[in-house]
């Protein structure tokens, strides 16, 4: 199963980068989001995955009686998801403003700030 997930992660990375390489602002943002998802899943996978055993201590017990999933990657991903959301929200608004101000959707046309000398 891990193999499939690993491939899926690769697909997310690839799709994310591919969309970031397009010339449309909206595609760029979508690519960014896919890429972020890929990274989160990678943490998830590499923290090792287990089925059906959430890291929640049973009601009557003060510690785990059975196998449990590593909770740490989950906490990390939560943090990463939320942070990425903050950045992406900002970026989406940025795209909106860029489009309004620069008046183009074509990223290739946004080359005035660093062209040559």
């Amino acid at each position, binding site marked *: 199963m891990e193999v499939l997930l690993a491939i899926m992660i690769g697909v997310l*990375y690839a799709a994310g980068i591919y969309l970031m*390489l397009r010339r449309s602002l909206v595609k760029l943002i979508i690519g960014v989001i896919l890429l972020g998802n890929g990274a989160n899943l990678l943490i998830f*996978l590499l923290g090792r995955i287990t089925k059906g055993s959430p890291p929640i201590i049973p009601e009557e017990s*003060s510690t785990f009686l059975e196998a449990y999933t590593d909770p*740490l990657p989950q906490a990390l991903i939560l943090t990463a998801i939320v942070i990425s*959301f903050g950045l992406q929200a900002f970026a989406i608004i940025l795209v909106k403003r860029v489009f309004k101000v620069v008046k183009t959707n074509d*990223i290739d046309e946004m080359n005035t700030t660093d062209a040559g000398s």
Partner: protein
Amino acid sequence: MLAAVLTGFLLSIFLVFAGKYFKGKLAVLSALVPLGLFLYFLSFINRVSSGEIITQSVEWVPALGLNLDFTLDGLSLLFTLLITGIGFLVFAYTAAYLKGHEYLDRFYGYLGMFMGAMLGLVLSDNLLSMFLFWELTSISSFFLIGFNNSSEASRKSAVLALAVTGSGGFLLLAGALLLGNVAGTYSISEMVALGDMIAQSESYILIVVLLFGAAFTKSAQFPFHFWLPGAMKAPTPVSTYLHSATMVKAGIYLLLRFTPVLGSTEFWNTTLIIVGGITMFYAAVHTLFRTDLKGVLAYSTISVLGLLVFLIGLGTQYALVAAGVYIVVHALYKATLFLITGIIDHETGTRDVTALSGLRKVMMPVAIAGLLAAISSAGIPPTVGFLGKELVYEATLGMADWAVVLTVLAIATNILVLYAGFVAGIKPFTGKLPEKFEKVHMPSYLMWLPPVILAVLGLLIGIYPAVIEAPLIKPLVDSVGLEGQAVHLKLWHGFNFVLGLSALTLAGGFLLYFLWKPSEKKENAISKLDFIAPKSLLLGFSAGFRSFSSMWTNFLQNGLLRNYVTTIVLFLVVLVGYSLFSGENAFHINTESLSEMTFYEVVIMGVMFMAVAFVVVARSRLGAVVGMGIVGYAICLLFVIYSAPDLAMTQFSIDTLTVILFVLVLSGLPKYIAKSNLITRIRDAGVSIGLGVLVSLIALAVINEPVNKEVSDFYAENAYILAKGKNVVNVILVDFRGTDTLMEIAVLTIAALGVYSLLKLRLDKDENIEKEN
């Protein structure tokens, strides 16, 4: 000695703040500083000539080996006296020359800084501190050359001069560090004892090349000489002081200083002879084609610098004595000629040799000084110049193999130098006074007295060479590592072959002076060869480099975001991919250790894969957003299946929020475009897939590695017992790793503030808002 060095700097700092009060009549008082220093150094003359070496050591940055270790020996004493002595006259001269100039205070400030740097340079026993002062001379020279900063030519010359001498400075730095590395010390006096060891080390050649680079650029040796004529854009006192008498001799000083350390090899000598020889002859020929007095003097200075390098290259006692004498001689007569040129320029408004004549009628004392200096430069007895020339011929003749060639070269050079001296020192004063110059009058005594003093001094030393022999020249030769006593300076050597050569030189020189008339036509004629001149080549190279830089920069920073992303991803894929595939224990994937695959997982993955594909190829942006929703939702299901309920909840909420954001702004967003052509898309797909494959492979390789769950086991065991929570993920978030979470909500807050500001603050909408930047 530290105090002496600092005096110059203090003067310039003082002038920064009190300059405006010192601009007027008080300016001349600043000449007291070099005068005082001159007298101070003069007071050492007995001790030094008796073989004593005076040292002073002040720790500065001992950890880096840079200390202010000052040593006063014969070599440095001679230089300090030149620096302060000529400095004194130049300071005084300037008071009149730039009288009433708006920025006179700055000028003195730079001069003071330069003097301090130069003194530091010649007094340093520590190689690094020597480099430090070396750089400071370059910088002060930069400011002085560019003093007339409204003139573009001035600015360009200043930059060019600094470019050349600065590059030499970096070579010196490298050389110094390498030498220090090899010798284990930065103390030059300690290195003398290690000379053999250094000469045998692997790095010897490199060290010498680096030091030569520094010396040749600073002392304007071919092919780095071209900055010096340009530097003549500076006011004449600067040309006098820096670009003939002192700073350009720093390279010579460096070579002399390191002769006892590095000068024992053939490489050293041969290189110096060749470079010096070419320089002296090449520059001397150039004097023939100059009509600007300063141009003539600049090339003749280069020629003499070449001669000095040549002499150091010869390396014999005679040669070094000759070098010592020539340093003095040249300083005296060349300073005189420059100062005279300054006077002429100042009073007549021109420096054109072809236009000047008969000025003796209006400025006799200056004419006399000119005559004396010309005679000295010509080496006519009884001037010290004669003495110097004699020694040169003695030296060249002493070289067994190359005697003839070198002597001929020396004679030819001397003939041309004689010519140059006459053109500058005699020609303007002889002949008929043109009408336009009839109203020209004598300048202030502050201006004419210094050249007269120098010229007379030259004459006196020639007549009584003993004045400099024991006190200056011998200690100098001693400190270069040879027995200074062996050579005895005297004006008259009797009738011998050398005298004959001198006579030949004089005859040739006179002939040339009377037959060859400088003219603009000739100047233009030679300028046709400029395209192969080192300066043109360098400027050409620099223009080429600039266009290359432009190309390189525009190639990298081409403004296309997707090229940036491509570059970065490719770099990552190639680098990491190479490492992954070249590693010894290349990854092996053992699927047995992995969990079993179930159909529902396959379905979820399949849906997710299709959804990703849909997002990628979607032709409508809303479609893509909805597709993204499916991807996120499939991820949620994966999180559920793999036991991460908190993650599933959060992921789903965030995805929905993202969708809402998109939906809210989508109407303001641009339509989808697909402007890339097929080839671009294939290329992009290649890059992307490369990254995807790489990440997948890394992931597979990592999950085959053994796991260490020490940390998460601690969380699991203690979440309830110590942190009183049963949802371990939440306990990690608010307790074990609460700091992360605190910062995470800070990120959210900042993002929200940013969004608010981005939407509400629109500077370009309101033209009336003051723009700050």
